[in-house]
């Protein structure tokens, strides 16, 4: 009746890739599990094979490589603050990591897992019975978006808290797949399509996150949520300025992908906000309204600019 369930525990990346290859697409990599396990419970993630990466030690290192700090994708969110190089050069990452879920979640959840955290929508993150009762939506193989009535586009929200902080500090991903290892800009893995929000091959493993050293980033991180713990983001803003005055704005929670706007410390602030708003395709699919979240983009960014530039 039900496909045989498997739980595999590779000891190396190569072994993980091999296992993935043999699982014919009916598998899911598991890092901390705080996202995947909940999605499984809700019936939104049904792979019969789970490949647990948590035994792979090479994914848990924090090292300096060339001009980058390399943070293994399986470093737990709670552990980031114990690495002095992160604390001194990239404090916004600590702030972002501390904004994820609850202290308990952060003790299991990993950096890589949070970057790949599945997009959310109040009409999607529901039990199977619920979704069946309302009619399956685009994101769960139905043919309509419950939130907008659209037959084409899914606007499930990108909700990672750490990714906006990383992107605003020009993070790269070191990705390993069948083809080998490569580096890509973090923002490039996001498609903007709520159904398939990332373009990474399912069999790819993020080895590490690379943050450029000596850029002297100054960053401000903010998260809109109703409670001070547990809640997913309704709007994340991460803004940074590097030593050359390059300014980068990244928004989460207001679009199926992170919204990125670049400028300099001399750019017209209103124009930056206008651009950010223009790119944000927030819809009414969570507890805060679309209008309010959009309005808060302006408030959060203005405050961030004041802290960074005034």
């Amino acid at each position, binding site marked *: 009746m039900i496909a045989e*369930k498997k739980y595999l525990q590779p000891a190396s990346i190569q072994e993980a890739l091999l296992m993935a290859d043999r699982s014919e697409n009916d598998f899911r990599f598991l890092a901390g599990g705080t996202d995947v396990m909940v999605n499984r419970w809700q019936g939104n993630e049904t792979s019969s094979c789970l490949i647990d990466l948590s035994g792979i030690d090479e994914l848990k290192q924090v090292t300096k490589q060339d001009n980058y700090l390399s943070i293994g994708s399986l470093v737990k969110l709670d552990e980031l603050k114990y690495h002095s190089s992160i604390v001194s050069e990239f404090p916004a990452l600590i702030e972002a990591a501390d904004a994820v879920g609850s202290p308990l979640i952060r003790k299991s959840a990993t950096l890589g897992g949070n970057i790949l955290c599945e997009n959310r929508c109040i009409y999607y993150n529901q039990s199977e019975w619920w979704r069946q009762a309302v009619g399956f939506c685009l994101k769960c193989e139905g043919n309509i978006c419950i939130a907008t009535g659209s037959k084409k586009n899914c606007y499930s929200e990108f909700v990672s808290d750490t990714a906006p902080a990383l992107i605003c500090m020009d993070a790269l991903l070191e990705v390993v797949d069948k083809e080998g290892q490569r580096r890509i800009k973090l923002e490039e893995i996001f498609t903007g399509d709520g159904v398939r929000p990332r373009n990474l091959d399912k069999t790819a493993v993020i080895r590490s996150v690379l943050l450029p050293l000596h850029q002297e980033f100054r960053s401000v991180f903010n998260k809109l949520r109703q409670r001070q713990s547990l809640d997913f983001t309704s709007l994340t803003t991460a803004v940074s300025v590097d030593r050359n005055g390059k300014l980068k704005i990244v928004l989460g929670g207001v679009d199926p992908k992170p919204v990125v706007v670049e400028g300099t410390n001399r750019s017209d602030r209103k124009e930056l906000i206008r651009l950010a708003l223009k790119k944000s395709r927030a819809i009414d699919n969570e507890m805060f309204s679309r209008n309010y979240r959009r309005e808060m983009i302006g408030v959060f960014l203005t405050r961030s600019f004041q802290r960074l530039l005034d």
Partner: protein
Amino acid sequence: MKSIKIKVSNREHELLIEEHETLAHVLRERIGLTGTKIGCEQGNCGACTVLLNSEPVLSCITPAMRCNKSEITTIEGVAENGELHLLQKKFVEKGAIQCGFCTPGMVMTSLDFVKKNPNASIDEIKDALSGNLCRCTGYKKIIEAVAETIYGENISGNGQENKSSDGKVIGTNQPYIEAEKKVQGKAEYADDIRLKNVLHCSFLRSSYPHAVIEHIDTTAASELEGVKYILTGHELPEKFGVLPISQDETALAIDKVRYIGEVVAAVAAETEEIAKAACKLIKVKYKPLRPFFEIDESLNDIGFDEKIHEHVKFNNNVHKKAELRFGNQAEGFHHSSYRSKMNFEFDGVTHAFTEPHAATANWDENGLTIITATQVPHYLHRALAKVLKLPLSRVRVIKSYVGGGFGGKSDPFPHEIIVSYLAMKTGRPVKIRFSREEVFISNHGRHPTKMTMELGTDTKGNFQVLDADISIDGGAYGSFGVVTSYYNGVLLQAPYKIENFGFKTYRVYTNKPQCGAMRGHGAVNSRFAMETLIDDLAHQMKTDPCELRLKNFMPFNTLTVGQYRITSNGSRESLMKVMEQSQWENRHGKLPFGHGLGVGCGFFISGSALPIIRNELPQSVVHLKVDFDGRVLITSGASDIGQGSDTMLAMIVAEVLGISMDKIFVLAADTLLTPVDLGSYSSRVTFMAGNAAKMAAENLKKEIISAVAVGKKVSADELNFSDDRIFTNDKTTDITWNEAIDIVTANRGAISVSGKYISPKLGGDFKGAGAGLSPSYSFGAVVAEVKVDTETGAVKVLNIWGAHDCGKAINPLAVEGQLEGSWHMGMGQAMSEQVKYFNGLLLNSNFLDYKIPTSLDTPPIHTNIIETADPEGPFGAKECGEGALHPVIPAIANAIFNAVGVRITKLPISAEDVLEKIKSSEIAYTAQETL
């Protein structure tokens, strides 16, 4: 299946498990360690926290396979050799445990934290606990317990002493008598009960809000191996409901469904998985009907569409109209120089106790036995007999430990009837446990409400008139709704003296899960409106809102306009206390823009004077038995749901008999063994069961006095009971308790005595006079301090100062716990909680989207017990578990007005709404200036 080896609390286990099983499931179902609780299954509540290789993890979302060759510590492994860990001792001693369901997870999280953070600050403790939800305590005592474990000192000034210097027990801080059991994960909740050969039950629930059931095809499901019985509605046609006047519910939907989530079919099978799989195979053909979701739709004539209930009188969906008027409102308005009238809107909120409903039923030669998480075994007993057509003598209801109720486990529930029936039909025990989503669907929470209220005062500030027009959304069935309809109005007749008063409430049926009684039943939303109007009048009159309240308070020993008998009344003391503590006079209206103080007062019943089912039975009976060993057994039907009623009974008996608590044993809430008590609702238990226990103890004392007087040849008037001894004034006779018991039981054996409580006859003779009648009433006040971010509209509550008149605090530790929990729950309704629907489908049926405040969202709570010695309460005590909730919500809203001039008329308070109003008032202000 795979084999794993794990070491759990120092014991090796080699197990065969399903590869995708969670650690929580393995611990509970395969190893049988039920101390680890499952509250949400989605990593939100923290009840399932265990240590995996010394790190806390949420075992409900931790794959068990990952734990192979690992060491796990569960709550069962924290105490060593029977000795509690210091942290556990502190949890017990500080009153950090109420229902105890969150306790195991809370202890595991804290255990890791105290070990790694020997210098933690209070803020860091609050942060560390913010992934563990507690619904009972408001976190205050939990934070204290953790802090004292770290600092090793008493930081709160209480919890140390459990006996006063004069040997009295009443008025001393007593940890719950079952607290040690709860802190070690040994207390068995309904889902922890393990009967042999049990079948598991699962439900197929309606996915239509309002539809005719045309056909149910169970063929495929019945062919599934392991399925034992499939039940549909027609087998149980008898209607039930908690109130005799609204018996409108059946155990399963018959011929039509009235809300999404209503039970359409039930399957009993060998395993939970099979039962669930079978439910998916049942095919139901529905014919949709026009659904009604909003109050207004149901109030109006519905044309040719089908009504939700056939029995409704008119062509609409109005379930109940309640209206009462006193004095002359027109004249009252005529004499009102200042009037305030507003429209209010309240979203529904729900109890959100941490323990999901669960029950196990069994049928044998003694008839039916059901062990269930209920607040009211007695009404369930009656409902089961009625629906299952059994004599009352063939039904036994046993309450397990209950992980929180707050009104949400007080109705007889369909699942309780269904598993009972299935046990009868299959001859095997049948068990059910709800998912968190099913708990939310079952609801019975506070009614979504719309109201218009108007209050008038003369120039001197004497209230002249109050009028309220209320409509409440009852959902698909009656529940306590008729009472709720009245409570919305009648409980406004105090604490302020108002001669001209009237209200009208409509309760409507809608196609949503039913609403019922929730902490502060019926009166919370209207209290919010009332206190808001008072604040507005004070503003109009340029007078202090506390002064205006003080001016209008009723005295003690008086009658209200609707003939409630007010005896003790601590309104004034409560308000003065919080004014003083918050430095009201120096700070109100004197803080910078965005920062404010607000006040609210409250009033609630201390037990409904009338039983739900009219009969001549006492409302509470307590039996005491004492035998040769000197131990006093208390048997009582009262339900301890975490509020501490078992401890209260023991304290009262100990006090009367002058014996120590360890000579007392409480057996409660088993309808075979314990005498009838109407249960834990309407804040009645301390007053009624407490009085019954006191009478029983006094009767036992009389027996002992007469036997000892004869045996020792002393005057009966001269005997004293204290410190486990019975002695004459001059101590020429001075015997131990056990010696006295030897004398009493000689030639007679064990003695049993009884005590009872029957409320005095109260109230007027008009229709509706019975609503809200109580032998006593509680009063209270709250001052809240807030900061409002004027650019985002976000509100932060900085402080809550609360005072509540509970008559006499029998157990101050427990009273504080009730008050703090009430204020916390009220703050949740004010700030973040709401039951949201999408086309009749519950949108936020989990702890992520239904937002109970976490420890980080909870401000410092300053607790004050006000004692007024109620003339009829046991030792002067009255309620403290519900009434305290009322004033906190308007206090927060009024503080927002004080901070930014924005009047809150809609709950929960949303940042968006506040921001909108700040902006429009700025526009108005600017416009005014330009004029």
